[in-house]
């Protein structure tokens, strides 16, 4: 990277870093227990599922779509993992491909339907949200499947670095996602499609395969998130991750990804995930009730969007 690029990168993430540090400072001053190794480790090991989803969601938002089915696809992937490991007594390595495939295929279906029939992805993925949740209950017979130690190692902190393989994989996925978005033809097309799909078409580019692929990637991320959550809970819960799609969207938006398409940044979305996680953990430690936690988290999201809108307006007047 050139020096100029480095400086631009620093400026880009300065705001989000400041918000994050501010939150950490506030919670540390209010609660003795917050700024401790164990708290930070616990945050790090809680966030892989949301991180995976935010990576996929960022790409989907960039092409101008939205994926509401991620929570259900996470649960369905997890249920598939549970079914094969418990009912069929497969090993993790045998069941894992099916878990990931479940997410990817459902995501592919989202993409094919919404692009092929030109239906807004909001509606298609809303339908998928219901279907996949129902399928989850069919697969698990509406029972939580306890898997146990066979799946736990993926979520447990490694000795020495105190971070779990799940976190490390999620972090690598963030970097990979950012690389995909900024350094490849695929990513450039995604941004272009989200900016003006008609201009892309008139430039002699078939947009459909790229848009469809983005939904499939989002589905694959659901599979990985399903694995992360299953290992954290030691079990596949058919009622897991209800409403997590809104947290994933919120993380992207806090990071400055536009809901109108054409603008997004995977690393910024990761900052969004961190901000949400720090907020949740910090508020919990302060003994704030669940109800108030919700109010505050919601408020932070709205403020983030306002700041982003103002930034956009200033950017235009330059």
């Amino acid at each position, binding site marked *: 990277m050139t020096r100029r690029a480095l400086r631009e990168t620093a400026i880009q993430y300065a705001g989000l870093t400041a918000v994050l540090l501010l939150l950490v400072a506030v919670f540390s001053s209010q609660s003795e227990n917050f700024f401790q190794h164990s708290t930070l480790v616990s945050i790090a090991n809680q966030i892989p599922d949301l991180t995976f989803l935010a990576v996929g969601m960022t790409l989907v938002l960039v092409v101008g779509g939205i994926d509401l089915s991620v929570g259900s696809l996470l649960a369905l992937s997890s249920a598939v993992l549970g079914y094969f490991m418990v009912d069929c007594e497969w090993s993790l390595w045998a069941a894992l491909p099916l878990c990931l495939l479940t997410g990817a295929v459902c995501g592919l279906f989202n993409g094919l339907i919404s692009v092929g029939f030109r239906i807004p992805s909001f509606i298609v993925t809303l339908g998928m949200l219901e279907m996949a949740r129902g399928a989850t209950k069919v697969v698990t017979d509406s029972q939580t499947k306890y898997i146990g130690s066979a799946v736990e190692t993926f979520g447990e902190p490694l000795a020495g670095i105190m971070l779990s393989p799940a976190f490390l994989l999620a972090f690598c996925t963030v970097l990979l996602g950012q690389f995909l978005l900024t350094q490849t033809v695929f990513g450039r097309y995604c941004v*272009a499609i989200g*900016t003006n799909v008609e201009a892309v*078409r008139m430039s*002699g580019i*078939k947009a459909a395969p790229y848009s469809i692929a983005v939904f499939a990637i989002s589905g694959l991320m659901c599979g990985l998130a399903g694995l992360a959550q299953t290992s954290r809970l030691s079990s596949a819960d058919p009622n897991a991750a209800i409403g997590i799609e809104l947290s994933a969207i919120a993380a992207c938006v806090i990071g400055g990804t536009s809901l109108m398409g*054409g603008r997004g940044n995977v690393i910024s979305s990761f900052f969004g995930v961190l901000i949400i996680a720090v907020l949740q953990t910090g508020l919990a430690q302060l003994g704030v009730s669940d109800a108030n936690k919700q109010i505050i988290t919601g408020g932070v999201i709205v403020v983030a969007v306002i700041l982003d809108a103002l930034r956009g307006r200033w950017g235009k007047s*330059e």
Partner: protein
Amino acid sequence: MISPTPLLQARDVTKQYGRVTVLDRCQLDVAAGEVHALLGANGAGKSTFVRILSGLVSPTAAELSLAGNFYAPRTKREAEEAGIQIVQQELNLIPTLSVAENLMLTRLPATGGILNRKALDKQARIALDRFGLEDIPLHVPAGSLGVGRQQMVEIAGALDRECRLLILDEPTAALSAGESEALFQQIEKLKQRGIGIVYISHRLEEISRMADRATVLRDGHYVGTYKVADLTSEDMVRLMSGDETPAHRPDQRKSRSQSAVALRVKNVSCGMVRDVSFEVQAGEKLGIAGLVGAGRTELLRAIFGADRADSGTVQIQDRPARLFSHPAEAVAAGLAMLTEDRKQNGLLLSQSIRANSTLASLWKRFSRAGLLLQGQERKAASEQCERMQTRCTSVEQLVGTLSGGNQQKVAVAKWLIRDADVFLLDEPTRGIDVAARRRIHELIDTLADAGKGILLVSSDVEELLETCDRIAVMSNGQLIKTFTPEEWSRDAIMDAAFAGYMNRRSS
């Protein structure tokens, strides 16, 4: 019928956009009970003129009076309150609302915010019936009516408001022969009620039939006001085009008798475009002239695969003749198309000059194994900026922040970087300043010299006369005639451009 004091008097109407003057001291008198035609070729300033009268555009300078009173509308609403109603070319109904709701939209009868449906229906019915539209239902969505009937509903709505002067901008463009006939009868009635009418149409036989007087504009200048009874269609065309001697390009055109065919279009039909065939030689610049709505953009889009053609074939060089079903196929076969509306479908306004310049060539030139070569992108984009003298801070500047002319240069750069055998250029110099225009003309010459085939659509006949080797004229969806420099003149081209509208429409 025509009263001595004019209903509307407009003097010294001038409109400038930046340094470009689109109307220069134009004038218009309309008497009560008169149909006054406003005539002019594309870009003569007719639409701008009537938009000033109806408060949609504010003039740089103007002296307007309405029935002897000072009149200076700042908004459409003020114009409407003064009694000037305009029905524009494009439809302004809200397609999902009912016909009745559309008719009364600005004055929905309501008590305490609650819609009074009975009063709404009653008033809407009166408005329609008065205009002879008893058969149009009130409660269907406006969008479910045919385009022609929607136009009639709009006119009825305009007349239902306080109306002393009615402006109709190309009202029959979307109407069938029967619907036009009904409109003419209504116009006759309005005349008798003493309403003044400003009428804009490309269809000269309508002018001859309906209008009492005609005011002619040319290139934003006032030419004169004439009694229509004294004018033939040929006279009108001559007045609009000017009596200048045929324009000739200063330089001598190279003879290209030996050269190969770059583009061969055979019997292409697509929507309103009917059975168009022509050839462009390698190194040749073929112009396409015609009025707005003659089907030129539609033809280009059909060739490029942007719209699916109904029939015909397109052949590039000696490759197999076919039809393209997606622009991607056309680009792969060696076509490039500069779109007419660069903001709508040409550029990514919120992205950088670099990303826009390389968009069509990412796989071809700026990537290895799917990874972007951003250094190369930057280099190629800078080269194009330098070559075209694009005014920008760097190639990372967002295209939306550039001026129109510089935006167009980026749109051109995209295709120069991609390279092609045949370039379809739709209004490449519209709305850009003189320097940028000259730059783009030079580029077109360079491309032709390199053996590319050029298809140039322009509403500016002068531009075509200056740049092209041959000029084809389209009218009402058909290719009427192709002119060589020996044959062409502004008059002949204008005659051909109106040819498709002279006879009774077949529709």
